[in-house]
């Protein structure tokens, strides 16, 4: 008997638009019932060897592959339980590679070292934060930064040497890339400063990444920037040209967008540099206090292809402001949303207001992530003002947002 008719409508039942003819019975002529497979089986004799038997309830495998490749990765993992054939399909590399990925959680540090907290806040971590593939080679691993899908790790303990290796790795594919040491043009080695290395990765170009290492000469003035390309496997050196003192906050306060690295500075601006080290810009971040220096530090992030910046005004009741850069060329921002953080956390007054922070924005939607720095972490939807509590303990108080990427 062909496919069960009754069971399949739950998804579509409400979808019939009014005014449209009901398609499944509206054939131009008085045609027989819509299922070709219910008719005389003899007409079903297939002459084409590659065509699946119509009478079966299942779709041909080609079609299933096309459908599953478009299903988000999280659903794909869930559908592994459907049946053995589906387990094989949902594990297939080419489907997994195409499956749309989205923010799945946060890397953060806890008492036991690096941990991973799922976006939903529940269940065992979907990625193993112990990074076992790295631990095979190194005794100590510290994650300095997570740029979308890649981690920049400081690793030690490989040999007797106390020196650090810097490894860029992809936890989903377990591929690692060891950064070569920086050797300056004059032959001198340069020790990387872990707080001033910025990893740039874009899922749109998943086969390569960049690392920017501003090299401070004196008092955090960056005269030069070393830029590493995973394609060339070389560091190149460029003179910085930001025009003035640029005190970078340091990683992970950075955003890699459209091939350009953006880094926040201590004076409420974003310093940017492109992959070749040719274009240098400083973009001012809007402030809420008239005196620039009274503003709390701003953070930046990217969402839906745009640079966002945010600040909490601790002097005035903990009001959060989120801006989006609407005109990249001119540096014009627009206030996207503002909300009172204390109200969100249902607190009337709070001694240490500065422990409230917004630590991330979702890369694909208007969801932001906040913590009270003590015992509660939540997501907040700027569109509908809905709050979702992610953690109610000190276990997770914010971290580095991670989106898996299986592309090679």
């Amino acid at each position, binding site marked *: 008997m062909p496919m069960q008719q009754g069971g399949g409508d739950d998804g579509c039942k409400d979808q019939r638009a009014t005014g449209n003819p009901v398609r499944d019975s509206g054939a131009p002529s008085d045609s027989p019932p819509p299922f070709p497979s219910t008719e005389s089986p003899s007409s079903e004799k297939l002459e084409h060897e590659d065509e699946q038997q119509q009478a079966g309830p299942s779709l041909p495998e080609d079609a299933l592959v096309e459908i599953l490749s478009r299903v988000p990765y999280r659903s794909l993992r869930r559908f592994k339980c459907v049946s*053995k054939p589906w387990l094989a399909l949902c594990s297939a590399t080419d489907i997994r590679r195409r499956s749309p990925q989205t923010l799945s959680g946060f890397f953060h540090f806890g008492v036991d070292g690096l941990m991973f907290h799922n976006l939903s806040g529940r269940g065992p971590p979907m990625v193993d934060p112990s990074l076992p593939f790295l631990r095979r080679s190194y005794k100590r691993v510290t994650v300095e930064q997570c740029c979308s899908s890649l981690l920049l790790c400081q690793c030690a303990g490989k040999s007797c040497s106390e020196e650090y290796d810097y490894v860029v790795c992809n936890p989903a594919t377990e591929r690692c890339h060891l950064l070569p040491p920086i050797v300056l043009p004059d032959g001198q080695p340069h020790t990387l400063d872990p707080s001033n290395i910025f990893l740039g990765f874009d899922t749109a170009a998943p086969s390569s990444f960049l690392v920017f290492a501003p090299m401070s000469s004196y008092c955090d003035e960056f005269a030069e920037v070393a830029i590493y390309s995973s394609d060339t496997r070389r560091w190149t050196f460029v003179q910085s040209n930001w025009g003035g003192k640029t005190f970078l906050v340091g990683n992970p306060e950075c955003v890699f967008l459209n091939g350009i690295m953006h880094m926040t500075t201590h004076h409420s601006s974003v310093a940017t540099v492109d992959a070749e080290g040719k274009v240098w810009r400083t973009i001012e971040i809007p402030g809420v206090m008239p005196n620039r220096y009274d503003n709390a530090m701003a953070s930046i992030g990217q969402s839906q292809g745009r640079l966002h910046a945010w600040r909490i005004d601790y002097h005035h009741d903990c009001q959060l402001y989120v801006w989006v850069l609407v005109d990249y060329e001119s540096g014009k921002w627009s206030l996207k949303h503002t909300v009172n953080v204390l109200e969100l956390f249902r607190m009337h007054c709070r001694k240490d207001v500065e422990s409230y922070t917004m630590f991330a924005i979702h890369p694909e939607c208007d969801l932001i992530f906040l913590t009270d720095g003590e015992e509660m972490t939540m997501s907040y939807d700027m569109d509908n003002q809905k709050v979702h509590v992610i953690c109610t303990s000190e276990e997770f108080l914010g971290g580095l947002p991670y989106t898996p990427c299986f592309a090679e």
Partner: protein
Amino acid sequence: MAATTADGSKVVGGGEKSNVDEESKMITLFSSDGERFEVTQEAAAMSQTIHHMMEDGCVDDEGVHLPNVGSSILAMVIEYCNRHVASPDEKEDIRSFDAGFVNVEHHTLFDIIRAANYLDVKELMDLCCQTVADSIKSKSVEEIRELFGIVNDFTPEEEAEIRKENQWAFE
């Protein structure tokens, strides 16, 4: 997408039953239940299957028999192809047409997918598969089985093991 067919060269002699009308370049398609559909070659060529048949000169006097596609579904596929060759550049119109087109029950959508797969109409496949993907992504395992008519062939222990490994996806 003009059909680069063997114009005339493979038309079997005896013109009155020719299925290739030189004027408007029509082609006849027969559904599994014997119904006859006249379509332009251009629209028919959206099906790579039919396109190759036309190119290889496998289209005989009568037309193309499609034993795997019933009339109501074939009618819909033809409607889709006609619409897409008619005004391929009017993005907004096509988008709203497509949205209305897939606004059908799952079993019909599956039938269209089967037909589009067999006929190899890539755009239609993409559209329908994306539609199905969007509608199933939030479904539970049980709902998926019901929808696709799948029998669970795991033992309870096996299933529990897989659920455990992928628990985060169920939260």
